[in-house]
C-alpha cells in the first residue's frame, strides 16, 4: 500500500509535464506525421501523396545526404569534446578551492548565452580572417584561414562553439563528483594509489551513471542544433553545404522552399535517427555503466 502511495506521488509530480505534452505537443506531432505524407506549400491546402516524400529522401536528394553527413560529423566531434572538457573542469573545480561558487557561475555563463543569436554573431567575428582567434594564432607565428568561410574548416567553428557551452554538463559532473564518498579516496591513498590511479579506478567507474546521462542528453541536443549553423552560415548552411546541419536543411526546405510536407518527413527521419542512437546507448550502457547502490 505504501508503495502505491509513493507511485501516486510520482505521477502527480509528472502530471504537469504530461498535461503540457498532451495539450501542447501531441497535436503538432500528429499533424506533422500526417503532413509528412502530403505535399504542402504552407499557402494552399496539403495534398496526400503517400510515401513520395520518404522515397525522395532516400533516392533523390543529394543535399540531404550531405546534410546527414555534416550532422554526424558535428555530433561525433562536439559530443566527446564537450563531455571531456566539462569533466576536466569539473575535476579541477572539485579540488575544494576557494570561491568555488564564483567559478562555477562564471563557467556556467557560456551555457546560458551560447544558444543565443548574439553569441553566434560574435563567433562569426572571432573566427573570421581578421578575428581575434587568428590574431592569437598570429602570436604563435601561424597564419590562420578564414575559419567560417572555408568549407574545410567551417564545421570546426560550430564544434568549437558547442564545446564552449560546457556549463550545464559541468554542473552535473560536479554534482556527481560530490556523491563519491571521500573514504574511497582515503583508503586508496593509504594503499599507495597515485592521482591517476584514483581517477581511473574510483572516480571514473563511480561517475559512469552521470557520464551516461550527460552523454545521452548532449547527443540528442546535438542532433537538433540549429541556431549556430543558421547564424554563422548566414542561413544557407554554406559554404558548399559544409554547415548544413539537419535542422537547418529541414528549416530551409520547409520555410524557404515551401516544402512543408517534405520537411515534416525529414523531422520523422530525424526522430528515427535520434531514437536509434539513444537505444544503442541504452543497450551499450549495461556493459560500461556501473551503479554502486547495489541495484541491478
Amino acid at each position: 500500500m505504501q508503495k502505491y502511495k509513493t507511485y501516486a506521488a510520482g505521477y502527480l509530480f509528472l502530471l504537469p509535464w504530461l498535461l503540457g505534452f498532451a495539450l501542447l505537443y501531441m497535436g503538432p506531432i500528429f499533424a506533422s506525421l500526417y503532413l509528412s505524407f502530403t505535399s504542402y506549400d504552407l499557402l494552399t491546402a496539403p495534398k496526400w501523396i503517400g510515401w513520395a516524400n520518404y522515397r525522395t529522401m532516400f533516392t533523390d536528394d543529394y543535399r540531404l545526404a550531405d546534410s546527414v553527413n555534416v550532422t554526424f560529423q558535428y555530433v561525433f566531434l562536439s559530443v566527446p569534446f564537450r563531455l571531456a572538457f566539462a569533466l576536466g573542469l569539473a575535476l579541477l573545480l572539485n579540488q575544494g578551492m576557494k570561491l568555488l561558487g564564483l567559478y562555477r557561475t562564471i563557467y556556467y555563463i557560456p551555457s546560458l548565452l551560447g544558444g543565443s543569436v548574439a553569441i553566434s554573431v560574435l563567433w562569426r567575428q572571432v573566427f573570421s580572417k581578421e578575428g581575434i582567434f587568428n590574431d592569437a594564432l598570429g602570436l604563435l607565428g601561424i597564419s590562420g584561414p578564414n575559419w567560417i568561410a572555408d568549407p574545410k574548416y567551417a564545421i570546426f567553428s560550430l564544434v568549437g562553439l558547442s564545446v564552449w557551452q560546457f556549463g550545464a554538463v559541468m554542473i552535473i559532473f560536479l554534482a556527481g563528483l560530490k556523491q563519491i564518498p571521500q573514504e574511497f579516496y582515503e583508503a586508496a591513498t593509504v594503499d599507495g594509489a597515485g592521482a591517476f590511479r584514483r581517477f581511473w579506478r574510483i572516480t571514473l567507474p563511480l561517475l559512469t551513471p552521470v557520464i551516461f546521462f550527460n552523454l545521452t542528453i548532449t547527443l540528442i541536443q546535438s542532433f537538433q542544433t540549429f541556431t549556430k549553423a543558421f547564424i554563422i552560415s548566414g542561413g544557407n548552411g554554406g559554404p558548399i553545404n559544409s554547415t548544413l546541419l539537419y535542422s537547418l536543411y529541414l528549416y530551409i526546405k520547409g520555410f524557404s522552399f515551401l516544402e512543408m510536407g517534405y520537411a515534416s518527413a525529414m523531422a520523422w527521419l530525424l526522430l528515427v535517427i535520434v531514437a536509434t542512437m539513444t537505444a544503442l546507448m541504452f543497450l551499450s550502457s549495461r556493459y560500461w555503466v556501473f551503479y554502486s547502490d547495489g541495484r541491478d
Partner: protein
Amino acid sequence: MSNKKAIAMLLLALMMLIAACGSGKNNAQDSSSSSAGSSPSGSSATSSAPAETIELRMTWWGSDARHEKTLKVIELFEQKNPGIKITPEYSGFDGYFDKLNTQIAAGNAPDLIQMGGNIREYIDKNALLDLSPYVGNVLNLEDFSEGLLKKATVDNKFYGVTLGVSTFGLLYNATMFEKAGVPLPSENWTYEDFKNAAVTISRKLGPGHYGTYDLSSGNNTSGLSTFLLSNGKELYRDGDRRFDRQDMIDWFTLWDDMRKAGAVTPPDVMVANPPGEIDKSLIVQGKVAIQAAAASQIYGFQELTQDKLGLLVFPVGSKGSGHVTPDPGQYMTGYAKTEHPEAVAKFINFMVNDPDAALILGNDRGVPPSGKIRDLLAAQSTPTDKVLYDFVSTVSRIASDVDYQQFPLDNELLKLYQVTGEKIAFGAQSIDAAVDEFMTEIDKLIVKAKAQ
C-alpha cells in the same frame, strides 16, 4: 510522518498542476488571438474604443536608410489620418520571405506587405488582396503607365502598386577605377574588356584588392541571365529553360579564367563578405571595384562610404546587350485576409501619390511610378539620384526587346546557383562535374514548378 509527507507532496503537485494549467490557458489565449489575425483583438479594440482606431501592420525589407525613410512616411500618414495606426515590422532581405510564408500559413500576415519580382507566386496562391475595387476612388493610379500595372494584374484583378522602377546592373566604385587609372568603360564593353579592367585594378591596387566580386558565385543570378541573353539564350521562358550545358560551361570557365588571373575575390573572402550584405560589402570598404546589384540599392551603399559609387551596364555578348527593360521591382500589396482593405488602399495611395511622402522616400525603391512625383523629385535631385536616372534610361535604351520572365522557383535557383559556383571556386568539383549536377537539379526544379 510518512502520511504527512505524502500530503505535502500532493499539495505541492496540485500547486504545480494549477500553475501549469494557468500558464497553459494564457498560452492558448495568446496563440488563438494571434493566429486568427486581427479579428478578435481588432473587434474588441473597436468596441471598447469609441474613436474606432484602425490598426494595421506593415512589413518590408531593406537597408537602414530605407527603414528610416519608411518609418517617417508612416508617421506622416498617421498625422494626416488620425484614425489609422500602423505598426511597422521591418528587416533585412535575409529571411524576409521565410517569415512572411510562416505568417501567411498561420493566417496572421501583416496587412501591408512589400513584395518583389515573385509577386505572381503569391497572387496565384490567393495570399494578396484584390485592390481593384479601390482603384479610381481611394487609390489613384492616373499618372501610372499601363505597363507598370500589367505585371500585378491577373484576371482583371489588381494586386500590387509598384513603388519604383529599377533594374539590375553593376555597382562600381569609381574612386577605385580612378586610383588604378582605369578609364570608365563604355556601354558596349565586352567580357574581354571587363576582364582587363578587373585584372588591372587588382594589380594596381595591390594585395587585398580585387577588380570584381565573383558573379558566378553568390546568390545573384543577374550576371548569368544577362550573359545568356547577350548570347541569344535565356534562363527561362514558358515553362522551360532556354540554355544548354555548354552555356553554363562557358560562363563558369569565363570566371575561372578571371579567378586564375587574380581579378576576382577568392571564394572565402566572398563568403565572409557577401556582396548582398551592405554593411559587409567590400565595395563600400574600397577593396572590390565591381559587384552586381539592383540599381536602386546604390543609395544604401553610397550612404556608407566616402568613395564615389556608380552604375555600369553588364558587358555585351555576340547578340548585343543582355539587359531587359527596367521593371517594377517592388510592390506594396495588401494581405488577402486584412480586416481593413480600404485603409490598406489608402496607405498605398499615400505612399505613391503624396508629394511629402514622395520627397521622403525619394528613389530608394527605384524610380517612382507616378509622372508627377518623378517631376517633383527631378527638381531637387542629388548626384546619386542622377546616377540612378541616367542608368535606368541607358538600360531602357539598350535593352533587348525580350519580354523577361522570372524563373518560377527563384529562391531555390539562387541556392543551387550559389552552391554550384562555390564548388567550382573552392575547387571542390571540376567545372564539368559541377555543371552536370546543376543541369540535373535545375531540370528537377522545372518539373517541380510545372507540378504546382
